[in-house]
C-alpha cells in the first residue's frame, strides 16, 4: 500500500510521440490522450517501462521496485506505481515573444492536489479566467508575450490581464519543476515572461490542435522517389512541453531475507524505493515514446520528493479531477 509519493517532471527537448495506436482522425499516428479531457498524456505503462530500462543493472533491486519479469509476474508485485504523465505547461506560438507556455486552472488545480499529496509545499492557489470569460488570459506583470494589451496565440487573441499569482506560480515552477543545470538558466528565467493561464476551452483547443504534426515519407532506394503508399503523418508533443507524473511507493513486496543487504538495514524501506528511482533518473535525459532513431522523445527529468508521509488532500477542490 502506498506510503509515499514523489513527482517526476519531464521536459521535452525534442518532439515526443507516445503513440495511441488507433486513429479515426486526420493524423495517421495520433498521440495518447485522456479520454475525458482530451489533454495529451503519456501512459504509465510506457513511462514505467522506460524507468525500468534506465534503472537496469542491479536485477534484484529492479525486480523489487518494478516487479518481476512477465513470466514470473505472479511472484510478487512491484513496490512502485507510476501514474500517467500529464501536461503542465504547453508551448504555443505567440505573436510577441515567439512562444508562450500555456496552462489552465484545471491543470493547475489538479497539479496542486497531486503535488501536495506527494508532500510538496505549494504556496499558490490555482487561478484562471472566470468560466464564462473566454476572451481573457492571465499573465504576469511585464509579460513578454503581450502586445498592445493582447496575447495573440496562433490566430487567437486574448485580452491580457495581469495577475500577481502568475508570477508566484512561475517562480514555483522555476524552483521546483523546471530542469536544473546551467543550460536551463535562461529557460527558467524566461518562464515568468512566457507563462499564460488560459480559459479552459482555449487551453483544451490548443493542446488538441496545436501539437506538432510531422509528415514522413519513405524513399525508394533505387528510384530516389517516394515509395507508393509511404506517406504518413505523426503527431508529436512539441519540444519545450513540461509534463509531470506521480510516483507512488510502497514497502517492498518480498520477504526480508530476499532484500538486498543495504535495504535490510534501512529503517524506512519505502524511502529506499524512491531513492533507487531518484538515483537512476534525476537530472538525466531519457528517451520516451516512438521514433527514437530519428531523435524524438528526449526528455530531461527532474525528480522531486516532498517531506514526510504522502497525504491525500481534500478531493473537493474545484477542477483537477481526471
Amino acid at each position: 500500500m502506498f506510503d509515499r509519493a514523489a513527482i517526476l517532471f519531464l521536459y521535452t527537448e525534442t518532439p515526443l510521440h507516445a503513440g495511441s495506436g488507433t486513429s479515426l482522425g486526420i493524423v495517421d499516428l495520433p498521440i495518447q490522450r485522456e479520454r475525458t479531457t482530451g489533454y495529451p498524456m503519456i501512459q504509465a505503462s510506457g513511462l514505467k517501462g522506460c524507468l525500468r530500462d534506465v534503472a537496469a543493472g542491479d536485477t534484484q533491486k529492479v525486480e523489487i521496485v518494478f516487479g518481476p519479469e512477465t513470466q514470473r509476474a505472479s511472484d510478487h508485485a512491484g513496490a512502485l506505481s507510476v501514474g500517467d504523465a500529464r501536461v503542465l505547461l504547453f508551448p504555443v506560438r505567440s505573436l510577441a515573444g515567439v512562444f508562450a507556455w500555456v496552462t489552465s486552472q484545471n491543470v493547475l488545480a489538479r497539479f496542486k492536489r497531486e503535488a501536495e499529496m506527494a508532500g510538496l509545499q505549494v504556496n499558490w492557489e490555482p487561478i484562471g479566467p472566470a468560466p464564462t470569460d473566454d476572451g481573457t488570459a492571465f499573465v504576469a506583470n511585464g509579460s513578454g508575450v503581450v502586445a498592445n494589451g493582447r496575447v495573440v496565440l496562433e490566430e487567437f487573441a486574448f485580452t491580457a490581464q495581469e495577475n500577481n499569482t502568475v508570477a508566484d506560480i512561475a517562480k514555483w515552477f522555476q524552483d521546483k519543476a523546471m530542469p536544473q543545470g546551467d543550460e536551463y538558466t535562461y529557460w527558467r528565467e524566461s518562464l515568468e515572461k512566457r507563462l499564460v493561464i488560459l480559459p479552459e476551452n482555449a487551453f483544451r483547443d490548443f493542446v488538441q490542435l496545436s501539437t506538432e504534426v510531422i509528415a514522413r515519407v519513405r524513399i525508394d532506394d533505387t528510384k530516389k522517389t517516394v515509395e507508393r503508399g509511404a506517406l504518413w503523418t505523426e503527431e508529436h508533443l512539441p519540444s519545450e512541453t513540461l509534463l509531470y507524473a506521480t510516483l507512488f511507493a510502497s514497502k517492498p513486496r518480498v520477504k526480508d531475507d530476499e532484500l538486498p543487504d543495504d535495504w535490510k538495514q534501512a529503517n524506512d524501506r519505502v524511502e529506499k524505493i524512491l531513492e533507487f528511482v531518484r538515483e537512476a533518473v534525476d537530472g538525466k535525459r531519457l528517451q520516451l515514446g516512438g521514433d527514437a532513431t530519428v531523435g524524438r522523445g528526449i526528455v530531461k527529468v527532474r525528480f522531486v520528493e516532498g517531506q514526510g508521509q504522502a497525504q491525500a488532500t481534500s478531493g473537493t477542490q474545484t477542477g483537477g479531477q481526471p
Partner: protein
Amino acid sequence: MSFALVIQPHDVLLFRDGKPFSAGTDIRARSLFPPTPFTIQGAIRARVLFSSGVSPAAYVSGKTQEAQKLQELIGTPKDSYGKLQLWGPFLANQENDRWVRYFPLPADIVRLSGSYALLQPLKKSPWQSNLPAGLQTPWLRTPERLEEVRGWISEDELGRYLGGVAPGKVYDESEFVEREHRFGIAIERARRTVRESYLYLAEFLRLKEGVAFWVDVEGISETDLGGKTGLLQLGGEARAAYYEVQQAAPDLIPTPPNPLPDRFKVVLLTPAWFSGGWQPQGGNWGQFFYGSVRLVSAIIPRYQPIGGAYVDDRRRRGAFQKPMRRFVPAGSVYFFEHDGTASWTGRPFTETPSGEGNYGQIGFGACAIGKWNYA
C-alpha cells in the same frame, strides 16, 4: 463506529473480468464497472494492514500480539473478515458540495413511450407457463411496447421508487465513467523493437470529474486506515486512488418498514450469491426474515460471473485463481408476500459458499426493501 469512504482515482483504474489475458492469444483486457466488493474489501484491508506497521508475513502467521489484534480486526488472509463490515460499493457524484449516491437501476423499471414504468406481478396468469415454483409473470397493462433499460438512479429516486413510484430520470453509465482503451507493447531490450506477440489492449475506466466510489464501513476506525485521507492501491496495474472519510450520509433510503408490508420487494444493490443459483437451495428464504414469506415473482437479469485471485502467499504459488461463481446481479428484484407479520432480519441478502469468508460482510447482498401491488 460507522463512516463512509469516498474513493477517487488518481488517474485511471482497471478492474479486470475473469477472461484470459495472456501474451500472444488473448490480448484484450476488459474492465468491470463498478468493481465488485471483493476488490474493495481487499484494498481496504490491505490499507489497514500496511498502516498497522505489522509486516505481511507476521500478519499471516499471527504469532505476535499485534498480528493477532489485526486478525481480530480485519480477519485472516484465508477466510474471514474480522470485524470489518462493508456496504457497497456504489457511485457518488459531487453536486453542490454534497455527495449524491447512485445505485444500480432495479430491473423492474422499464421504459414506456419516453418515460419509465414499473413491472408488477400478475395476480393470476390466464396462461400456463414453465416459470418455476408457481411464480407469477411480471407485467404491465399497456398496449405500448416496453423497452429494457439499464443504468443508475440517484438516492432520492431510489427512495421514491421503494414507495412504488417509477423514477423520472435514469442515468446512463457514460454520465459517470468513460472507457479509455489503451494499446500497450513490450520492448525487446536488446534490439529496441517491439517484442513479438506482446501487443495488448486494455480498457481502463476514467471516472468523470467529481465521481467517486462510495462504500459504508463499520468495525474499523479511520485511525486503523491511517488517517482521514490517504492513498489506496486499487485494481490492476497497482493504480493509485485517494480515499476520504466522510460522515455516513443521512439515510435517504428508507429503512425497511417493520413489520414488512403484506407485499414487499427486495432490490439487490450489489451482487449476491445463492446456493441454488438465483435463490437459496430449496427456496429457503426464511433465513432473511422473521415470520414466513412467500416468493411471488422475481426479475433477475443475466448472471454475473465473479472470480478473482488469492493473494495469500501459500495459495498464490499454487492454483491462485478463485473459483468463478455466478452471482445474481445488482438490480435484481424479488417480490414477496406474507399473510401474518414478517420482518427483515437485517442480514445482507446473500449466502456464502462453504470455505469462503462471509460474503454479506464485505458488501455483497446489500439490498433495499420496498412495496408493490399486483398489476
